[in-house]
């Protein structure tokens, strides 16, 4: 059997290089692979293109990568928030580029990449600023934007349970973009709260099949950074 489990964050991240496109899971406080992000920051990687729903809240997720100077470009749907000014500051200073994408199209461009498609026909954003420079295509009288697939060199994924084949389960709403990111990257790295034995996951309940996972690291369950409310 392929050895997917690694014992250290360093080993988990040994395939990432400067300039890579990195798909990073997470929405709000949930499903963010914080330990892998910490590892990227410690490696001092530079000029990464980061794909996530947002530019990060407080010093969490993408915001942490921005604070640590790892990011050359952000591809996201929501690049500002009341909790974090780091993206806006860097963007306005010309230190980081932005590609803004409607949230559902961001997910769908990654799903297309994972499915081996070149792109999608999108009804979202037709006639808007985000359509500038994009080709359109009409089917049955409806205009669509041609949106390219969005593959990653690397995906950083957070799961709740993993088994030795890399099969994944996510609790509650923590899956968010993680499953499509796992499919869309050439190399998918998972951090999981818990590892279970081979055969312990019900095949009918597996949410991401292990074929989409190259490597996993077991973190144990931890409280999200910056969350000061109730937690169990």
């Amino acid at each position, binding site marked *: 059997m392929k050895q997917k489990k690694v014992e250290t964050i360093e080993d988990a991240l040994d395939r990432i290089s400067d300039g890579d496109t990195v798909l990073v899971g997470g929405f709000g406080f949930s499903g963010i692979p914080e330990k892998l992000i910490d590892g990227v920051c410690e490696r001092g990687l530079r000029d990464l293109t980061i794909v996530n729903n947002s530019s990060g809240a407080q010093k969490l997720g993408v915001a942490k990568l921005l604070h640590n100077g790892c990011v050359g470009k952000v591809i996201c749907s929501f690049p500002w928030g009341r909790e974090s000014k780091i993206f806006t500051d860097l963007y306005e200073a010309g230190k980081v580029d932005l590609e803004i994408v*409607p949230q559902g199209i961001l997910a769908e461009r990654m799903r297309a990449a994972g499915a081996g498609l070149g792109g999608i026909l999108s009804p*979202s954003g037709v006639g808007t600023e985000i359509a500038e420079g994009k080709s359109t295509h009409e089917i049955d009288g409806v205009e669509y934007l041609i949106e390219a697939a969005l593959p990653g060199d690397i995906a950083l994924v957070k799961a709740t349970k993993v088994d030795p084949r890399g099969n994944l389960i996510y609790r509650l709403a923590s899956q968010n973009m993680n499953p499509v990111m796992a499919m869309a990257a050439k190399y998918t790295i998972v951090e999981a709260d818990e590892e279970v034995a081979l055969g312990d996951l019900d095949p009918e309940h597996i949410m991401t099949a292990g074929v989409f996972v190259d490597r996993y690291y077991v973190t144990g369950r931890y409280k999200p950074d910056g969350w000061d409310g109730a937690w169990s």
Partner: protein
Amino acid sequence: MSDSVRLDRNQIAKRVAAELQDGWLVNLGLGIPTLAVNFIPEGYDVIFHSENGIIGMGPQPADEDVDTDLMSAGKGPVTLIPGAAFVHHADSFAVARGGRLDAAILGAYQVSDNGDFANWRLPNRHVGGIGGAMDIAVGAQQVFVTMSHTDKDGTSKLVENLTYPLTTRACVTKVFTDIAVISVTPEGFVLDEVAPGFTPDDVIAATAARLIVSDSVSTIAA
């Protein structure tokens, strides 16, 4: 307009909530739309969709039951109704673009009389936030906009042509403001209801687009 008082946020939310039908699947934007959850008619099974993959959001939990893996798109803690389901982001937006949302209630900076609306970037800002708005507005069966009728300077947010960056073309079906309920029709804006104390002429004066007054114009039950 001496006896007229503009509706507050809760009154707008209550009025838009009265549009929702039993059994509908609905997505709520941030702000006033989120308040609509508090005004669903007794006995109605209205299912709320959250863009981060929750179908069947319930009310806010007690502080001790908050779970960071169970929050709305606005990062507010929520619960689940019996029979709720989780999907990943791509499927969550398939719900939206695929036409499964009976209605979306969204905030806006401007709405034009052909149903275009703007809500993602202020013209004087470099950076805005699209989030899920473009996908949700393009796919929902009905798009209800809640907003104040005018901005702080008294400038109408209902216009002939948007001056703010477009979110989605020709999608808004009805607008719920602090002084009126207005339908978007092939003929343009139609005034259906006025807030208590307001006359149709008051609303016409506050609107920077042609406003057709419905034959059956009524007063909002505030």
